[in-house]
């Protein structure tokens, strides 16, 4: 029976890895398109490169390097807003990438507005998880979960002292890991940041073009979106800087379709 349990456990891990490998096997067309876009970038055909990266993203090949490269292409095109947006999206997937941190910082320095950068919830940094993306955190939780229940299965047949203490330890760790994953997930789902895309966005006191102009924002500035009404978005920069702007002039970092 123990052999059966072992086989099931190994099978599950192989299954997980297989799924990952299946996802890694992206096919020659994806790689070809990726290299084509890269080549266009190197040839200073930035618009062509950007189109190539966008094509990949729209076809489901959404990953950190593609967003990073897209950000670079936009930056070269002088589209600071979309560059920051792409870098921010890449950061959600490859948060530990040093090049990305450098380029994002550089792009932010180019923005005209000196507003403070609205970060994701501080809970996302719980246990230093800010350097992990949500998939990695979830995998950690799943692994711990699998180990815990595998251990419980072993204990059904052989109750030893070490499995008892190990199961208690794993139960505690899995509790902490579960909290971390939940917080990471909540922070991601509640991330309402958006990036100003237009060169200049007029922020008004109401969702009407005749309302009073409060202030102006410029491309690349990251704001928080409170709600959307028709084609208008209520955004907030700080406690005393909030107002309405046309929705087509900014874009959320987290696409609503991802949620």
């Amino acid at each position, binding site marked *: 029976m123990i052999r059966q349990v072992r086989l099931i456990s190994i099978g599950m891990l192989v299954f997980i890895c297989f799924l990952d490998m299946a996802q890694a096997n992206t096919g020659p067309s994806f790689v070809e398109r990726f290299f084509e876009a890269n080549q266009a970038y190197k040839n200073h055909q930035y618009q062509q490169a950007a189109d190539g990266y966008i094509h990949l993203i729209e076809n489901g*090949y959404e990953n950190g390097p*593609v967003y990073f*490269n897209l950000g670079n292409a936009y930056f070269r095109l002088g589209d600071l807003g979309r560059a920051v947006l792409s870098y921010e999206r890449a950061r959600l997937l490859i948060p530990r990438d040093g*090049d990305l941190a*450098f380029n994002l910082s550089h792009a932010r320095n180019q923005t005209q507005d000196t507003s403070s950068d609205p970060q994701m919830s501080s809970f996302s940094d719980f246990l230093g998880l800010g350097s992990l993306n949500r*998939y990695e955190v979830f*995998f950690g939780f*799943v692994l711990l979960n699998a180990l815990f*229940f595998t251990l419980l299965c072993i204990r*059904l047949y052989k109750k030893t002292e070490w499995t008892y203490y190990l199961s208690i330890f794993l139960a505690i760790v899995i509790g902490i890991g579960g909290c971390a994953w939940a917080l990471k997930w909540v922070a991601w789902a509640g991330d309402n940041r958006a990036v100003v895309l237009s060169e200049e966005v007029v922020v008004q006191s109401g969702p009407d073009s005749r309302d009073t102009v409060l202030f102006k924002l410029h491309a690349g500035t990251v704001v928080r979106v409170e709600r959307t009404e028709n084609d208008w978005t209520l955004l907030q920069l700080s406690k005393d800087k909030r107002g309405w702007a046309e929705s087509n002039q900014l874009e959320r970092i987290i696409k609503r379709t991802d949620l």
Partner: protein
Amino acid sequence: MRKTIPVILCFLLLPLFTVWAADDVTVTLRLDRLETSLSDTVRMEIRVSGSRKSDDPPVLEGLASFLVTNGGTSSRVEIINGKVSSGVDYTYFIQPKKTGTFKIGPIRVTVDGKIFESESHTLVVRKATQPGGSDPGPVFVQASVSSRDIYVDEQVLYTLKLYYRVNVGNLSLGLPEMEYLHFQQLGRPLEYSSTYEGLAYQVLEIRHALVVSKKGDIHITPSRMKMTVRQPGSRSRFDNFFNDPFPGFSSGRPLTLTTDPIDLHVHALPEDGRPAGFTGIVGSFQMTSTLAPSRLKAGDSATLTIQVKGRGTVNRIPDLDLPEMDSVRTYSDQPVLETGQDRQGIVGTKTMKWALVPEIAGEYKVPPLSLSFFDPETKQYHVLNTPPHVLSVLPGEAEKRIAVLNSLPGTSNTGEGTLKKEIQQLGEDILPIHTDAVDLTVPFRSLAKGWVFWLALVGPLCMYLILLASLRVQRLTPERLAQSKAKKAFSVLRRRCKKDPMGYADLITAFKDYLNDRCGLSMGTLTADDAERILGDQGVNAETAKKMHSLVEQFETALYAGNTFNDAEAVGKLLDLVKRIEKDMS
């Protein structure tokens, strides 16, 4: 009694006489001497008779050349030869400022709006008796300086000595006040006995440090010393009592003494040999310096301490500047100046400290620091220099890492002692795109999507539950149940035996059930022979089987023929034997 009554009446009527006497007001001026010297004080008494008060204080004339000190006011009532008179006396002490013949008075006193005048007196003032030939007097004061030929800002001693042979008190000192003279008293006054011109005196010595900040011939005006002199008189104790009934409260005679003026010749500081950076310090100074530790690791701190101490214008000791040192950061501490005084003048010490933090290993020479001053004794400028200090710096932890990196192939060795520089930003741009296709996967993303997400999340739990359920099902088969029963047979028996009360029939039944469970049997009744046979078949020791046979027989006998041993004993015997059976069967 007849004589006493008029005396009492006289005292009672005294105010009436006083009023009557006021009509005859006279003012009398009295001087205790008509010839005096500059160092003496003359007692001047103004007696107003016929009135015990005046409208205003007396107006004194002819006293422009005198120092006047008020000696107090007293009222009096006199009965002389039966005649009663009253009055008020004003006492002044006058001290001449210069020699000559002076007319003192008249003194005008206003009583009830009327002005009354006194007579005048002539007072001759002569020079004070010079010490050297004749008696200098019972009290005199002298001033002296340690040198009359000095330099600007040189410190000299200005000494005042009060000689006295009488009781003096209430001393106060007035020093010359000139803007270029700076006095500072040195310690408390000294009191000692001395002999002057063959006469014994008590001496009060007060020392001052004097600094003159102006060149040329300087005339120091006299210092003044005010005091109260109490000179014992020759009158009898009886007289003293009536003149001064409260001797302890006597104010004595005020006296003001002046010193002779002093002339100084003050030289300017010489231009020849004046060092560059001379800051005007005059006196005698020494400079010491220490560096501790002189051997340390890069990044650690050493302390350079410089002390300048000496006598003179210590307040002008400058804060020295330590020059910049290559690869050594310097942090200066707040300089501390401590001043003091002794009998010879003002002394002081200035302590300056620097923290030296070398950045890289090597030998560093601490640049010498210098201080120049003018010494009036040698009449020369002197320059003090700190001794050369060498700071030996060993590689620090941070520098060791750099040294290791420098020694790696492909890195340039900058050499020991090379200065590190701030990295200069020459341009700004983004870093290039990612080109490696291996990095294109998002690890574990497939786990977090669709049915895989739920499988990964609840799969292990489901697996556990399935295994748990299958185990439960397995336990319900007859073989597993029989095994389970056999395993639990002894504990079931033991539990039943604990029931109270337990009859012999119950014991036989319990043992029968035990055998059924333990051996997988289904006996309805149990005899002693059955028990021995079954146990023998199950591999139980023959002796144990026989004992059990015997015990079952006893139970049967007891059940049908009468009780032969108590219940507890029977239960104990049964359980003991079953325990042996368990051991044999296991």
